[in-house]
């Protein structure tokens, strides 16, 4: 079993997530600017904050054109980057003989996609 392939598989996983998360952070930043800078929010920021600080939950309907939605998109992109990160690294694990570990990686992907599907579809 190759230790080099194992290390490379880990690095592929980490680097993929790293760059997706940085891209996600830039999108979140853009969303923050639109929401706080230009006031493109589903509900006025003042209203959101005062409701939150009074301990009330918010029911925000997501508008695709709002800064709020862009922030959620950035967050979702970073979290979902785990899926391609695992899928890119798993073939190397499989070829280097760590097949059970590769299967665990795939099971994690299925769980993440399954949970997403269960919640949103």
């Amino acid at each position, binding site marked *: 079993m190759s230790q080099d392939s194992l290390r490379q598989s880990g690095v592929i996983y980490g680097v993929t997530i790293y760059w997706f998360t940085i891209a996600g952070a830039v999108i*979140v930043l853009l969303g923050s600017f639109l929401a706080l800078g230009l006031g493109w929010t589903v509900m006025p920021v*003042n209203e959101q904050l005062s409701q939150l600080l009074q301990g009330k939950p918010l029911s925000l309907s997501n508008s695709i054109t709002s800064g709020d939605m862009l922030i959620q998109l950035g967050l979702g992109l970073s979290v979902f980057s785990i899926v391609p990160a695992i899928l890119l690294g798993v073939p190397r694990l499989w070829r280097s003989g760590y097949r059970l570990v590769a299967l665990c990686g795939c099971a994690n992907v299925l769980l993440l996609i399954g949970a997403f599907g269960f919640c949103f579809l």
Partner: protein
Amino acid sequence: MRLFLKVPELTLLIVLSLACYFAIGVIEPIANGEVFSLHSILSLTLASFILSVAIAIIAVIAGIGGGVIFTPIVLGFTSLDSLVVRATGLVVAMFSGLISAAPLLKQGLVDIRLVYICALPTVIGGLLGALMAFQLASVMGPSSDAFVRVLLGLLLLGVAVLFITGGGRHDYPKTSRLTGLARLFSLDMSYYEESVQTQVRYSVKRLGLAICLFIGVGFVGGFFGLGGGWAMVPVLNLVMAVPLKAAVASSGVLLALGNAAAIWPYMLYGAMVPILVAPWMLGQVIGGIVGAHILAKVKVVVVRRLMILLLCLTSVKLIYRGLQDLDYIGRIIS
């Protein structure tokens, strides 16, 4: 300073973040409301961002995930809705782990086999915990917040005791022959220990027991929005015999993967409030990169002592507030 030159994307993110907040302050688009002026909204956002950077650095160095610092403090000292706090807490818990995965995996401190295997039970537990949080809120109504505060306070006291009695931790546990499940997965590992300039070898033990414990850790992390990193280090180090430094590094990476599924229910039910979460996420990304680069050189003792103090104070405050909201304090006094 060398770090900012070595990692240009970190510098770029910091500059972009500061430029964005500066631009928001200059444009002044938000009408001053009855409750909040633009100045106070911007101050709140900037304070969240700076606090998040500090929490992320501490979290990566201590291997605990920032949720265990963020969630109790915000629940104990503000009146924000507990589901909103827990959703933000999960973001705080997992984003420093997400971003620090690359440097830690490159340094060889984290073994990807450990991450994939231990993440499975954590993902399942985390998802169940998040769904249970909403179930509890719908069954108990407003009193669920107080109930969660008391439970979390008690849990944190337990965590503080775990940190205090952590003297039994093994920096370099003895290696032995692989048995059972660990043998099936060939979990013989090694990493280069920079502080003693040597290759440290270790073999994973008691994988079956650890898998059961990770389901519980995931559940608690998903339910309270803590992440669960505080429990991962003891499980990795004391149960699985992973050397302390590798356990600390693995915990953060594992936390990110293990809590990913728990985020979706909070998003679905609208508990993830974007303008509240954004500065915390950005701070975690920046602090996570900084923390991962200084982890190899830093002594964790000071961070741990600070954590113990913080946990004790916050748990007392949480229990007091929870009991007060449940009207127990008033009844005791009268």
